[in-house]
């Protein structure tokens, strides 16, 4: 913004400009799920408080009230169900465990630091004794913290999702452009789409164990197994939506490409992708959602590191805190799933040209 002499502008114009800015920002607030910011900003800058108040109520008040009602119902009903691990934990116990998990992570970090201190001391002693060959740098071998588990899961899901996208988008474009290819791919989609990740898992495990025989490669076997399972299950939404998006391109555009005698490559990059992009992104969003859901199940069954394993381990522990810890994991999974979806939505808004922007 260039500085403008306030005297040359009436306050009216200033307000109008402020509102255009707020409206511009509104588009982004919507993307990040912060739509309730707009009426607050508008009200703050003095725009019809009454109308804004009802907006604020709709966008912020109602959701907050619903959450509060849910928490109230939960804390009232939870203690009435007695399981063999004690009563079902209410919100306060779950919060307690969330704090406990954080403290665990802090403790584990302290242990890790102590490990490295001991290692440094050992190595310093060795160097002092002139035994340079015996100096070793080793990675800490303690348990992964809760945050590390979350990070592992996120890495895995993105890895699997990227592989899936690299396979699905080209295939989808092929299927969308050529009815023959579509006829070939379609039955496979129909058959494999409904298969549960738990059915893929043993097959994937066996194949990865056989093919990826080294134990010191770039990826650990468990990581690959989880990621490939995610790939197999999250392929389909992207594939189907891409094919649909590509096949429903405006016919006039296709005619234009024929008149201009475009090469296939140019046609795909200049015409097909831009006009199919919104649907491709819809597919990607769905895929990532499916992938995240599948990953937790795969980790649970295969005992691969990540949130799924955390849940299963806690279930196996069967301590009086287990249920609350599992609930912490449930909320974590839900919140991360929501954030992943938002990230995809933000990307979609950046890359696609919709009517309103």
């Amino acid at each position, binding site marked *: 913004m260039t500085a403008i002499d306030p005297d040359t502008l009436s306050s009216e114009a200033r307000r109008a400009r402020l509102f255009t800015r707020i409206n511009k920002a509104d588009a982004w607030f919507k993307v990040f799920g912060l739509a309730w910011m707009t009426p607050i900003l508008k009200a703050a800058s003095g725009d019809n408080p009454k109308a804004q108040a009802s907006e604020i109520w709709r966008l912020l008040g109602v959701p907050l009230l619903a959450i509060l009602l849910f928490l109230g119902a939960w804390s009232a009903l939870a203690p009435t169900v007695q399981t*063999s*691990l004690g009563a079902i934990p209410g919100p306060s116990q779950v919060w307690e465990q969330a704090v406990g998990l954080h403290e*665990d992570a802090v403790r584990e970090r302290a242990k890790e630091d102590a490990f490295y201190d*001991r290692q440094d*001391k*050992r190595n310093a*002693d*060795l160097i*002092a*004794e002139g035994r340079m060959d*015996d100096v*070793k740098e*080793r*990675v800490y*071998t*303690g*348990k992964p913290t809760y945050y590390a588990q979350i990070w592992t899961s996120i890495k895995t899901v993105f890895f699997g999702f990227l592989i899936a996208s690299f396979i699905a988008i080209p295939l989808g474009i092929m299927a969308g452009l050529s009815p023959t290819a579509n006829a070939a791919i379609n039955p496979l989609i129909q058959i494999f789409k409904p298969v549960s990740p738990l059915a893929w898992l043993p097959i994937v495990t066996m194949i990865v*164990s056989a093919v990826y025989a080294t*134990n010191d490669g770039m990826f650990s*076997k468990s990581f690959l197994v989880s990621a490939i399972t995610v790939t197999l299950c999250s392929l389909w939404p992207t594939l189907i939506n891409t094919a649909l998006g590509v096949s429903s391109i405006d016919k006039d555009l296709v005619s234009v490409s024929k008149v201009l005698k475009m090469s296939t490559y140019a046609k795909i990059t200049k015409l097909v992708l831009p006009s199919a992009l919104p649907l491709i992104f819809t597919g990607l969003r769905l895929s990532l959602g499916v992938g995240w859901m599948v990953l937790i199940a795969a980790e649970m069954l295969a*005992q691969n590191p990540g949130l799924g394993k955390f849940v*299963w*381990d*806690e*279930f*196996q*522990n*069967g*301590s*009086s805190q*287990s249920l609350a*810890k599992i609930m912490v994991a449930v909320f974590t999974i839900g919140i991360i799933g929501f954030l992943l979806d938002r990230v995809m939505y933000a990307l979609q808004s950046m890359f696609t040209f919709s009517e309103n922007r």
Partner: protein
Amino acid sequence: MMNTFKWLLASTALCATPAMAEMLDLEKDELKFGFIKLTDMAPLAVAYEQGYFEEEGLFVTLEAQANWKVLLDGVIDGQLDGAHMLAGQPIAATIGYGTQAHIITPFSMDLNGNAITVSNDIWEQMKPNVPLMDDGRPQHPISAAALAPVIESYRDRGEPFNMGMVFPVSTHNYEIRYWLAAGGLEPGYYSPDDVSGQIGAEVYLSVTPPPQMPSTMEAGTIFGYSVGEPWNQQAVFKGIGVPVITDYDMWKNNPEKVFGITAEFAEENPNTTIALTKALIRAAIWLDENDNANREEAVEILSRSEYVGADAEVIANSMTGSFEFEKGDVRPAPDFNTFFRHNATYPFYSDAIWYLTQMRRWGQIAEPQTDEWFVETAKDVYRPDIYLEAARLLVDEGMADEADFPWDSDGFKAPTPAEDIIDGIAYDGRAPNAYLESLPIGLKGTQTIVGNQIQD
């Protein structure tokens, strides 16, 4: 700390850090060990948390496994370097029952530690058949004969009587079979074409992973189970079942878990094998020293979610010298978990032979075998030589007491006397076939299972 102090007194070498003076030349120092969430994995957790692995120059990752099969496969295909195993696993793998792989045992992890639990409902039906003591509490050990009428009533109603155990070659499977057979009940046979182990059974045994035992019993799929701790005490705490007998009452000081590694690993990494055995022996000493003085601390370690993860009070129940049967019926059980006393860690051939006799007894070993075969197989799997080498180094370093190890043993324990065993049948590891002959129920001599009949 104490150990280091002792070592300083004992050592003549002057060196900055005592643990490094005797460091073996390790072939591999980053190791991953698997375990199942049971209290008898304690030596592994203690060796890690007390820094014994690190003092031997080993960087160990401990990883909980989903079940025994996953764990064994992990060791065989090299994802795990070693694991806390059921004593039957290395033996079965070596003779090719299930997965074929040569696995050896340089270190036996503990004695006792299991129990058999039945659901509240079954206990109510059993209780009238159990003799009572003067104070009105049931008289222990309870024989499976008390269960016979209950099973009878199920059979009359045409319902199968199901019980759970943790693995076909697990101690728990052999123990529950031993207990049932001692009470005159048929636990069923295995044959080469039918590995369900339910041929001719009156009680149908099936596999359930230990941590899921209580929930499976609660769901009514099984009416009882044989499992290690904390899953028997857990049933008492949750109020869903009653332990009826501990394995100590069934067979005093019977061997339980072992530490298994592949023979290949031991050949390629001899020093690493000795180093890890040293760390485990030190952990076992720590667990039992000064009359279990460290058990409270051990319970705290085990209750962490990365190890066993059950509530500390549940684990403490059996680890600290008592065992609760019915709610409130707490009885002393000082040797319920024994990690070092009575040479618990020495891999005796006679222990391996007992497992082999039970495999033969129930048809997992389908063909008759000579006594020599039993001994040879035991020597293939159990490696007291590695154990003693590690123990010798520890004694030299002042970390262990010369008197605690059976240096001159030929690998056979003195025969277990009849009074130490619930059915009063003595066991001598030197005469496996004669022992099989002396058991009333089970295959013996040249008997084999054909179809679903025993053929002589």
